């Protein structure tokens, strides 16, 4: 099973966001988990990121209105955490762990290889919007270092050859 690509809604579509019935019912369900609506903020943001691919300002506003928070507050929370995309992500976000165990087990090699193969480094994306590299901190899988998380999925015990195979597979599956 290969990793599914992210479909990021374009910024125009997210200028003003109205949740549809399906979203509303999921939000309503999430609210039952907590004694206060604000506590549903992270889960609702996750829902939005899944739905729209990223958290545009319009999404923050809609979430704020739904949970009775100020948009600035929501923005403060969104940007505290590293996993919410505040710009439209590429279809595949390659999150390369760079912390100690991965670093001593070849994370640098992976990054060098990615630079060679895709021509990009951490913080950059390929011009066609297929790949984006993000250097991340320990992914909690150090025993199988080096580790790359692609979108939601972990790929462990990687080396340049396995990475190549993975990139081929992803590039092929992107449509």
């Amino acid at each position: 099973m290969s990793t599914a690509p992210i479909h990021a809604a374009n910024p125009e579509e997210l200028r003003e966001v109205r949740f549809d019935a399906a979203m509303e019912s999921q939000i309503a369900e999430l609210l039952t988990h907590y004694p206060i609506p604000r506590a549903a903020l992270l889960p609702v943001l996750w829902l939005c990121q899944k739905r729209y691919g990223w958290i545009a300002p319009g999404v923050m506003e809609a979430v704020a209105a739904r949970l009775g928070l100020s948009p600035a507050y929501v923005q403060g929370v969104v940007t505290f955490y590293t996993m919410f995309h505040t710009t439209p992500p590429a279809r595949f976000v390659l999150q390369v762990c760079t912390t100690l165990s991965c670093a001593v087990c070849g994370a640098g090699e992976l990054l060098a290889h990615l630079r060679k193969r895709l021509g990009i480094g951490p913080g950059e994306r390929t011009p066609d919007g297929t790949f984006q590299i993000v250097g991340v901190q320990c992914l909690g899988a150090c025993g199988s270092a080096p580790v790359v998380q692609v979108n939601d999925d972990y790929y462990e015990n990687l080396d340049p050859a396995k990475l190549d195979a993975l990139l081929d597979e992803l590039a092929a599956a992107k449509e």
Partner: protein
Amino acid sequence: MEPTLLKARGLEGSRTLASYLSRGGYEGLRRALALGPQEVTKSVIDSELRGRGGAGFPTGRKWTFVPKDHPGPRYLVCNADESEPGTFKDREIIEHDPHLVIEGIAIASFAIGAHTAYIYIRGEFVRWANLLEQALGEARREKILGADVLGSGYSLDIWVHRGAGAYICGEETSLLESLEGKRGFPRLKPPFPAVVGAFGKPTVVNNVETLACLPSILTRGPAWFASIGRPRNTGPKLFSVSGHVVRPGVYELPLGVTFREIIFEHCGGIRAGRKLKAFFPGGSSAPVLTAAEVDTKADFDACAEAGTMLGSGGVIVLDETVDMVEAAANLAHFYAHESCGQCTPCREGSDWLVDILHRILAGHGRAEDPDTILRICRFASQGMTICPLGDAFSLPISSIVSKFRDEFERRIAAATPAPPRKHPVLPWAGPRPGFGR
């Protein structure tokens, strides 16, 4: 030792409720419900179980801090944030045996009188959050959870709450803030969560592994648990071993094995026939130990005696090729990246350390740098900060400088850029997406 926590590893279909029940699953919960909260707490106290999340606080005692007569709800939170570098044991339990965690949560919740529990799991663990959701679904369907737990009349809901990328949210009060929909800023203590926790109510936060110990304490008895290891350091422990060992991975061993046994017997020694240089015994926040200290026992008290800590049991093994200045720089970068930024010494100190270490690596070290590093570490720890993240970088980094000072001095004396490596050992993580403007 026969595995308790990793019993399911390698079994076909081990994640299913059926498999769990066939292994005597939920028997511990059944016993707990029959014993009553007080007795359950007493068993856990007698077992001498200490928290596996990092601080090693006696679990049963922590439960007794919850005010007995407090009106209104109270909560149990399972800490599945697992973000300490070098730690990947909770993921292993969830991967193979999610019901073990759920049973542990149910027992603890019952003991403290909570009717709602949350599993706070790090945002990156999408797969493991889903595995937990599936298992919870099964348990709800089979009336193991819900309004009438196993027909006892006790009600319990468990919800999975995903983080979104922040190491600091493993710290229990930051976790609670995050659970409440806020930025993960650790809270001032006191009050402690057991008194004022989630949503202002008494709350116990326990690590996944801690909770996973509970079912067997109830089925096999506290004496059995206490017979493993030595007094005050009892029970089986998961060691996550990573770095330059032949067989990295998660090992379930009795507390009190030596790091020599862990590294050289269980993990097959150092890769490529190289020599051990240093290791972090309990995640990257524990002061480093050198090869000469490899006979230290892997338990809470022995590690404390050796001037370090067992922490989460994440053993990061470094061989002789590792440049300790680079290792320090890598860790400093991690902590600066993860500092919540609330308090001055941690926010400024962690970033400052990165600057100094990167400057040394770039060949512009100054003679006073090691002392400046030690000074920063001294004043970013020991109660100077709100939460222990200040200590979490100060202690390991100052230990690296103290124990490998010659490496720093050589680098500084050479004062030229280090010879370029084929591949940088320490990649630069680059800017965060959405971080900055």
